């Protein structure tokens, strides 16, 4: 009995060891599996079909028959030979850069301001940011439309009353530049809360002793910011920047609704609108798929630095 028990234990311990080693190896996969499973199940086929359709002539006629005609890289060719595509790309890059820069700079300034406020003012400002954050873009667009309408927009009224100039019946949407500038104000306004609150959270990780020590040493506040504060919040700012690039490059709802269908032309297209107009409105789904894939490639190229950094950060050693 004793021997038997002994062997069993020995055997089972051995077995358990290898199982547990195996188990330990499997744990991360088990942990990741649900996310991969869900994403794969939902996005797998759509992505495959996007790639397939991008290689086909696929319009309304083909859509109804559920059957496209393979035409190789023709869709990509026509898009890349379309001067509208290149103009739109350039415009979108400038637009996204401006939006990302404004959002991050103003958002960080607000976060820095929050640290310096009395508690009640800080609560007030945070509350305001939360209100802004909880306004759906669809709603925000309507409010913007309403505040800047030509007839009795409150913005025109305020500017006129403040003697900034005569803004009676001023139209804020006359040129492509002014249209996109209005879209920028809307997007920056909507994105500020997320950036400001996140940077504020990161700022709270900055060691106060260091800041005070630097101040006592007589360092200028600008230097303190550069040497002490900035290094701590850099990772957060990097993440926010790359997320903002992803969002602003493909933005659709705000420009489309604020500029309005009646005023969307090739002269003020952004990539998101270009994709929608070429792919859906003209019902040329093959071309739309090709544009989607090109957009993905461009965003990936823009984010290469970020992706590499992300893979490195927190590397388990």
């Amino acid at each position: 009995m004793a021997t038997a028990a002994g062997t069993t234990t020995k055997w089972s311990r051995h077995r358990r060891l290898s199982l547990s080693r195996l188990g330990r190896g499997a744990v991360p996969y088990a942990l990741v599996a649900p996310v991969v499973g869900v994403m794969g199940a939902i996005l797998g086929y759509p992505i495959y079909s996007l790639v397939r359709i991008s290689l086909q002539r696929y319009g309304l006629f083909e859509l109804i028959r559920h059957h496209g005609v393979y035409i190789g890289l023709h869709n990509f060719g026509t898009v890349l030979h379309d001067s509208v595509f290149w103009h739109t790309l350039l415009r979108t890059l400038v637009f996204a850069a401006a939006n990302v820069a404004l959002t991050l700079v103003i958002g960080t300034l607000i976060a820095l301001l929050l640290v310096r406020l009395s508690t009640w003012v800080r609560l007030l400002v945070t509350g305001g940011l939360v209100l802004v954050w909880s306004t759906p873009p669809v709603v925000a667009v309507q409010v913007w439309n309403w505040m800047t309408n030509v007839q009795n927009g409150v913005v025109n009224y305020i500017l006129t009353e403040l003697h900034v100039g005569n803004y009676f019946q001023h139209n804020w949407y006359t040129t492509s530049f002014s249209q996109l500038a209005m879209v920028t104000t809307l997007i920056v306004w909507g994105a500020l809360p997320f950036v400001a609150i996140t940077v504020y959270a990161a700022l709270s990780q900055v060691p106060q002793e260091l800041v005070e020590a630097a101040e006592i040493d007589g360092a200028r506040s600008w230097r303190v910011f550069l040497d002490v504060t900035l290094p701590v919040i850099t990772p957060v700012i990097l993440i926010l920047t790359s997320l903002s690039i992803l969002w602003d490059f493909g933005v659709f709802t705000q420009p489309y609704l604020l500029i309005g269908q009646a005023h969307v032309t090739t002269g003020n297209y952004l990539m998101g609108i270009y994709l929608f107009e070429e792919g859906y409105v003209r019902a040329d789904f093959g071309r739309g798929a090709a544009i989607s894939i090109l957009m993905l490639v461009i965003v990936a190229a823009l984010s290469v630095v970020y992706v590499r950094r992300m893979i490195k950060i927190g590397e388990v050693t």
Partner: protein
Amino acid sequence: MNARRAHRAGWNVVGIALFAVTVFPVFWMISTAFKTNDQINALTPTWFPLHPTLQHFRDALNKPFFWTDVKNSLVVVLVTVGIAMVLAFLAAVALSKYRFTGRKLFIILVIGVQMLPGAGLIIPLYVVLARFHEVNTLTGVILVYLTGALPFSVWTLRGFILGIPKELEEAAMVDGSTRFGAFARILLPLVAPGLVATSVFAFITSWNEYIFARVLLNDGSKQTVTVWLSYFLGTSRQTDWGALMAASTLTAVPVVVFFLLIQRRIAFGLTAGAVRG
């Protein structure tokens, strides 16, 4: 001391000005919702409607399906956030605590999904969901929202887990707990603020989403509240600004309530960082 106080007062003034500017659009929306049509259209704006009218709110609430659609939105958002938090947390643990083959690939997948242009996927997604009869159901929308919420949540949670001092976790292990036991008992409470912060973001993004909900849901009784709101604009006839602003206000209320409910935890999450520093 005095100089410092003066300084602070100065910053406070800046803060209040900032508050006024950022909140003005929201204020204007709410104030418009309480004005009569003549006040709304007048050339000289009424700042505060002294005799507020509730007519626009009544009109908005009389639009069919408001309460049903609020309920639908809540179901969609809560289920999405719930599932996303559990799944993302597991994956975040794997990413921050384990080294395994395919880790890089997983990271690239997570980042790559965020780069997909959503508009390009509308029709293929519809086809998949239609094949499994999940069009015009909340489940279909939840599944789509998960693909949006998961990558972001994995990222953020991973950051929060990385922020937890290793010693705490090791101390737990010495106690004889298994590694996962340590996670469950030590990690979870410490990551709670992170979970709250992440779920806030997932909550707001899902609540505000419009395009996929619009395409996937057809029955008035099965739509989300942003789709309900779009009916104030979809007609070829007049836009009723008052009702639209009232409806917009109503749409934002649940989010604000959600914030009020968890605001203590957010504050905790934010100060937790300070304590750590």
